């Protein structure tokens, strides 16, 4: 049974890996998006939003330094959604049945799918981080190591979010709408582009919402990890969000209880 499960896990991860290698356009577009933000948007806001001292920073940082962790989160957020988009596509094309008829528990198959997506997400984020470092974003050497567990946890959480959403989507067309209603509010209502105290200054309600946004937790987890620090609060929120989203996804894909039977 264990060997069977292992083969299934490797099969799912291998399939996702192959898909990643073959879909070069997807990889390039996943990189271009945050790089545009880094090269153009951050440069434009350099002098206006340029300074802030908040932990983990110990001195003033340029805006592009501040948004780098947020853009890493952005890479993972989009990847999580795209990986789930592929689930909807697989379901529409019928290839998901091949996966779901396996004698292995559905929760295991979904977790494997999540792990595969997170693996791709971490690879994409790492490549983006290396490009950012080459561009001149100073990151301590230890940060490249300490950020990995954070990227894995945030990648899993955002992947699980996508998985959960995909379980509630009937058709591929609907997914695009959900991406707009989920990705953009999550991204803009977070600490990815501006620190929470800045949002607090203009709108305390938005700041309150942003502070409970799981994406804010993921970004702060990455931000602290990049500088060799551990943000326990952010880690706990990210972890429990992961459990919640994954639980909902497993429930959603359960034919007897979830949304699957309603679609049938």
């Amino acid at each position, binding site marked *: 049974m264990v060997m069977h499960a292992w083969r299934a896990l490797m099969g799912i991860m291998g399939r996702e890996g192959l898909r990643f290698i073959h879909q070069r356009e997807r990889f390039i577009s996943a990189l271009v998006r945050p790089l545009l933000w880094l090269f153009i948007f951050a*440069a434009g806001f*350099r*002098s206006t939003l*340029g*300074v802030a*001292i908040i932990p983990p920073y*110990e*001195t*003033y*940082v*340029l805006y592009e330094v501040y948004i780098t962790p947020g853009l890493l989160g952005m890479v993972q957020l989009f990847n999580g959604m795209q990986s789930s988009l592929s689930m909807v596509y697989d379901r529409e094309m019928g290839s998901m049945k091949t996966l779901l008829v396996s004698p292995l528990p559905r929760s295991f198959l979904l977790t494997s799918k999540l792990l595969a997506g997170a693996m791709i997400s971490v690879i994409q984020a790492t490549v983006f981080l290396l490009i950012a470092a080459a561009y001149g974003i*100073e990151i301590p050497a230890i940060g490249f190591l300490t950020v990995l567990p954070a990227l894995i946890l945030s990648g899993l959480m955002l992947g699980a979010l996508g998985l959960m959403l995909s379980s509630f989507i009937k058709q591929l067309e609907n997914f695009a709408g959900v991406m707009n209603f989920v990705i953009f509010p999550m991204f803009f209502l977070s600490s990815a582009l501006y620190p929470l105290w800045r949002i607090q200054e203009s709108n305390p309600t938005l700041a309150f919402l942003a502070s409970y946004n799981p994406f804010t937790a993921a970004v702060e987890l990455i931000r602290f990890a990049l500088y060799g620090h551990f943000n326990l609060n952010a880690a706990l929120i990210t972890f429990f969000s992961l459990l919640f989203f994954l639980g909902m996804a497993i429930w959603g894909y359960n034919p007897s209880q979830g949304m699957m039977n309603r679609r049938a």
Partner: protein
Amino acid sequence: MNVPAFFMLILIALPQRPGMAETAFVSLEKDQAVAMVEVPEGTLEGTFKVGKRPRGIALSPDHQSLFVAVSDEDTIKVFDPKSHQLKGQIASGKDPETFVVDPRGQWLIASNENDNQITVIDLKTFKKVKSIPVGIEPEGIAISADGALIASTSETTNMVHWIDRESLSIVDNTLVDPRPRACAFTEDHQELWVSSEMAGTVTVLDTITHQMITKIHFKIPGITMEKIQPVGIQIDRQRQRAYVALGPSNRVAVIDAKTYQVLDYLLVGQRVWQLAFTPNQRFLSTTNGLSNDISIIDLQQRKVTKSVAVGQYPWGIAIAP
């Protein structure tokens, strides 16, 4: 060799840690106090009250006295840097802002902005030796490392006044760019660097001919030219690097002091004003007037390592071993 002597030898042989804490004294214009910060750790040790509107601050060559220009009390107060007890007061003339301490330990020379003069004070008696009339609104004042050369800048006259140590009178004047705020001699006293706040330049002058050697301009990507307002200058002893505080641009310029090329701009707090080296010149600290903090720069790494909140309107800074 006995055991204690052996350990003593080991202690002496051990290289000094570059990060050994030194104390930065920061005058806080609005808090009427001086803050003490451990450098490079960036730990705020505390503050002590000094009087109304403290600005210029310096240590005596033996580091046993801390001088603070208390502008609104028209005096320069002398404190014990360890106990913070007031040791004396110097009749500096009206509204003292900037001053220098003679490396020979004989004089203290202060700019009196409102009186258009500089005042030379005997450090033994704390009495005035002479007042020297200069241009309108004297601000920058510098004395060479050997104490032989004295220079003063007048903000409104846009001049550098060269003062003879023996006669304590002006021997020459040199026109520079508008609003010369600060000046500093190179350690070899061959050059005088003058920052011009309004023009956004630093003029390098020859101390023999009193003529300009070169003019340094600054350009920071994404920052408008009017925000580049050079003020404090520090030049290292080897004349390898010079550092210029660029005011509201929130940057410190790093300059090759031999080729006069600007090598880097380091992001610090808002409206960076004055600069001070640690005694070993391994670190440089800045006072950031609007963000109420100081920034600490690791000069080997050429990197700002910390910014530390110190109190309201930090103005001047002096660092003791």
